[in-house]
């Protein structure tokens, strides 16, 4: 069975006055796919999500969500199947957690009897649920926000900076929930600054810069595209480092780090050969570590690349 994309954007552009927030973005998201959208503030991530939610309308291009126009006549039908966790979520402080979720459940046409299970799932305990949202900590508000996004088993989940303010344990359980949903066939679009925590969570990464999509692919594809060096870190005695430097010869950049660690940088394709050469030298290596370029570095690389291209074009 060939699957239809749940979200398809073709050349979508959004302008606010003279400022172009989203620039000719093409994007297709499949069911059961967890896509991370990265980019710094003002890169167009939130603007793109607002377009997909139908809160704003594109100035150019075509956007379809679950086969319909999110800002058109199908909107109520589409939004019933969409969950959204906004950046800096806010609730009415005078309502209790339970009242808040009941309110949103009724708006979505979901029976409220499923709400206790939802609270349990996001880890909000019964005493907390009965308290007013105004007294909540950031972590509790974020859990409530996740609970409302999960109402009615959405087919698409938009999560804008979902883990800001969560402690590491909570982050862990948050990503477990996301993984379960993805396996159940939900499309998840995740925006984040915390790039390192996305590794291992996202099937695909979309890099945004100044409203344009500058890269799109799985982490390994992006690694290949970025051609960033892999670093091999060796812990060994001081004098051995000298011999190693001599023997490795040219082609391998060698830097010394603190604590008797030597770092070798080489292209991804050469790393196996490089490791062989290091081992073949009968130097006394106490530890070896291979460091892949992190998402942070790749992100920085793609931004530099786009900036350079833009300058060249001008």
């Amino acid at each position, binding site marked *: 069975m060939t699957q239809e994309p749940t979200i398809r954007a073709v050349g979508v552009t959004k302008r606010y006055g003279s400022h172009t927030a989203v620039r000719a973005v093409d994007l297709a998201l499949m069911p059961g796919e967890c896509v991370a959208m990265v980019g710094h503030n003002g890169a167009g991530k939130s603007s793109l999500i607002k377009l997909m939610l139908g809160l704003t309308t594109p100035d150019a291009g075509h956007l379809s969500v679950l086969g319909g126009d999110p800002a058109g006549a199908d909107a109520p039908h589409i939004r019933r199947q969409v969950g959204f966790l906004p950046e800096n979520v806010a609730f*009415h402080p005078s309502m209790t957690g339970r009242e808040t979720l009941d309110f949103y459940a009724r*708006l979505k046409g979901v029976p409220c009897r499923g709400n206790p299970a939802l609270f349990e799932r996001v880890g909000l305990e019964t005493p907390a649920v009965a308290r007013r949202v105004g007294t909540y900590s950031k972590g509790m508000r974020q859990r409530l926000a996740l609970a409302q996004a999960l109402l009615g088993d959405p087919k698409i989940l938009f999560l804008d900076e979902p883990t800001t303010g969560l402690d590491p344990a909570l982050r862990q359980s948050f990503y477990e929930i996301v993984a379960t949903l993805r396996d159940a066939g939900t499309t998840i679009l995740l925006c984040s600054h915390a790039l390192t925590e996305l590794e291992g969570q996202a099937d695909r990464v979309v890099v945004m810069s100044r409203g344009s999509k500058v890269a799109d692919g799985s982490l390994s594809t992006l690694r290949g595209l970025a051609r960033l060096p892999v670093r091999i870190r060796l812990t060994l005695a001081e004098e051995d480092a000298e011999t190693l430097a001599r023997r490795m010869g040219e082609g391998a950049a060698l830097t010394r780090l603190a604590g008797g660690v030597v770092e070798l940088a080489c292209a991804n394709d050469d790393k196996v050969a490089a490791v062989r050469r290091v081992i073949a030298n009968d130097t006394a290596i106490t530890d070896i570590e291979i460091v892949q370029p992190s998402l942070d570095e790749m992100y920085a690389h793609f931004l530099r690349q786009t900036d350079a291209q833009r300058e060249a074009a001008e």
Partner: protein
Amino acid sequence: MNTLLIIAGKEIRDGLRNRWVVATTLLMASLALALSFLGAAPTGTVGVGPVEVTIVSLSSLTIFLLPLIALLLSFDAVVGEIDRGTMTLLLSYPVARWQVLIGKFLGHAAIIAFATVLGYGSAGAALALGGAEIGHDSWRAFAAMIGSSVLLGAAFTALGYLASTLVRDRGTAAGIAVALWLVLVLLYDIALLGLLVADGGKTVDAGVLNGLLLANPADAYRLFNLTGFKNVSLLAGTAGLAAQVQFSGAVLLGALAAWVAAPLGLAVLLFSKRQI
């Protein structure tokens, strides 16, 4: 329809929680009771009942107070929710923009109606318990005063919603609300008087004046209550004016209703086009 009720219900609960409902109701009730007790004292020889006295004083008070309460309650309704970020989440739900706006308006209007009916109703109850002979007509006039007060409150709530939808900043919305109150409640009548004096009756005839009075919800309300009922207008000293005003009660109520519908309609139109 259901969505409207859910949103209106939430707004009412909010009002109950942040003491708006209690505060407004107490304020209205205490002022109404004070006026009715004052009004009940010196009526012997004038030939009008305590109810008429209360209507005249209460409706004069309402013109100042109720628009202010309504505007304070409503100016933040849209711009505040956008500012706090609750609007983005709300609009990502399967609700239409007009449902959000009308639903919230219904909630706020219900708060005003509740406070007015209960507050002024308590004054009516006090009068009834006072033991004086009160005619059927007097009660009708009193009920009409309460009803039209609710309508006046709704009109200014709608104006507050319009202010709240027009701008992107809460401070500006508050400024517009205050300006609306100043102009419609205080300055309009002064300007009208000034115009009449300056003109000396050359171009501004009764027809034009009547039209100008309809163009302000506060004046439509005043005319309705002070000229609509014979006993009241005798007391208020507006009997002469009542003979000049060609509008029936229905037209004046219609004007008030239009002052609810027009700003609200415009606010809905603006809000549906708004890029959040």
